[in-house]
């Protein structure tokens, strides 16, 4: 993984402000966004060598404004002269923006006319200040693919007639649902067990946490934004213990808990505790609360399973989903024994979305294993390994199957 440099970190932080100023001033989000991207690239090249300007935001606004002007002007000769002029003249200081447009920007990048993959790419670039190349590396797709997604997304926004302004208050809750989902998707996209340093992925989990922090700062009273940030922190806290030296996944019950990030756990727990006490309860808060109960157990056997089951019951009523059903089955097994879990799993398999899902087979394997039915557990682990689409999961499930096979039933 590549850590962002000081310049990169600063640029990502300033990017939404600069884009907000430009779009507010000129209205044409499509061109402004391209211009800001170019200004960021120019800064990446210049600042490390020449030093960060005394007013970095002003510098970026000036350079981006010039780039925008160049793009708007179609006359090629004129454009060449502009470039020369821009390169010679030091940027004049710009006044700092009086309003923070970051929330408007979040909402525009996660606009409902866009597909989810486009929302992800545009949010990472527009709000996150990442370059197309960085996004492509992070998402493991070619740069041209990401570039195309972004330009097409902006065309769609333009065609929809969406303007750079806050949506009507009545629409805001629904629009925020999409923003939270996009951030959670970015987080999960980065939550990978990478093997070795050869991947050089931008730290998407860190980016997602940074963006969620920004959103939480803008909307401190939104319990679900707080819940989302807490869920990310409480999940990411376990990362140092989640993979072995060979990159293999280590399940929660077997992790070395002394490696967990206690500062992140404390912050996440405080966030979710306060959100649950002050805001209407929601699915992110409940998932964060479940993660917090796991994280507060010093040893796996100290886990307060009845408490987790109560939270799952609540989550199941509030936001039922196949994955919540499966998660709850595991907890039922921990509270009432593996046979009780297996009974519930049979019922859950009636849902066509789950019937042949690899997670269902993985859970069945785990519960059969707990119940001492080694040969059936092995078969279920093998089935789950064949059905999963994730390389680390397949490795993990195969290892479980062969471990059961070695000693024999």
């Amino acid at each position, binding site marked *: 993984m590549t850590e962002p440099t000081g310049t990169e970190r600063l640029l990502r932080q300033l990017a939404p402000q600069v884009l907000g100023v430009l779009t507010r001033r000129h209205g044409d989000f499509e061109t402004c966004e391209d211009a800001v991207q170019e200004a960021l690239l120019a800064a990446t090249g210049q600042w490390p060598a020449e030093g960060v300007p005394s007013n970095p935001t002003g510098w970026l606004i000036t350079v981006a404004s010039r780039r925008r002007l160049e793009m708007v002007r179609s006359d090629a000769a004129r454009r060449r002269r502009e470039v020369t002029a821009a390169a010679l003249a030091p940027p004049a200081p710009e006044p700092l923006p009086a309003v923070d447009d970051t929330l408007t920007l979040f909402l525009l990048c996660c606009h409902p006319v866009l*597909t989810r*993959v486009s929302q992800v790419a545009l949010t990472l670039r527009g709000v996150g200040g990442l370059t197309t190349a960085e996004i492509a590396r992070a998402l493991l*797709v070619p740069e041209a693919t990401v570039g*195309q997604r972004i330009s097409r997304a902006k065309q769609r926004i333009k065609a929809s007639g969406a303007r750079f302004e806050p949506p009507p208050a009545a629409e805001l809750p629904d629009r925020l649902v999409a923003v939270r989902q996009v951030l959670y998707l970015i987080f*999960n996209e980065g*939550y990978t*067990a990478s093997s070795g340093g050869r991947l050089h992925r931008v730290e998407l989990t860190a980016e997602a946490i940074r963006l969620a922090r920004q959103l939480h700062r803008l909307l401190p009273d939104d319990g679900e934004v707080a819940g989302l940030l807490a869920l990310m922190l409480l999940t990411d806290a376990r990362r140092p213990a989640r993979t072995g030296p060979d990159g293999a996944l280590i399940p929660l019950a077997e992790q070395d808990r002394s490696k967990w990030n206690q500062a992140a756990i404390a912050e996440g727990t405080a966030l979710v505790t306060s959100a649950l006490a002050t805001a209407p309860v929601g699915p992110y808060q409940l998932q964060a609360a479940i993660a917090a109960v796991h994280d507060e157990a010093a040893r796996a056997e100290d886990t307060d399973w009845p408490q987790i089951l109560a939270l799952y019951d609540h989550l199941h009523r509030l936001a039922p989903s196949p994955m919540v059903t499966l998660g709850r089955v595991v907890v039922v097994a921990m509270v009432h024994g593996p046979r009780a879990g297996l009974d519930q799993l049979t019922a859950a398999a009636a849902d066509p979305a789950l019937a042949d899902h690899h997670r269902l087979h993985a859970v069945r394997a785990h519960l059969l294993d707990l119940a001492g039915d080694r040969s059936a557990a092995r078969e279920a682990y093998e089935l789950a390994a064949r059905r999963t689409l*994730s*390389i*680390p999961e397949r490795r993990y499930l195969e290892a479980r199957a062969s471990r059961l096979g070695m000693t024999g039933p």
Partner: protein
Amino acid sequence: MKYLILIYSNPASREIWEGFSEAEQAEGYAYYAGLTEQLVDSGELIVSEALADASHTKRVTVRDGETITSDGPFAEVKEQLAGFYLVDCESSERAVEIAAKMPEAAFGLIEVRPVLDLSAAGM
């Protein structure tokens, strides 16, 4: 999610293709070019290639450290891989929707395979 869309040919589909006039074949190529363009435009295409005739196939075997090749075509193989699209799209439903646009789908010669990824969210 990434999906590999595999396009096969079989004796029947090859016969139809070879029976096409030059203009009809040009139309076929143009259709595929248009499809590729659509997928570039939607930001879903990662790579697509058409493969040379199966007679160019070399089967490679290493035995006792020695590399041995045998030249195709191989009589026992009726269905030949003719080309592929690697796409990154939202769902398997969308991948199937793309696959259904391939003319060979009329002969049941298109396969969609999900690509394994490195994510292990929720583990």
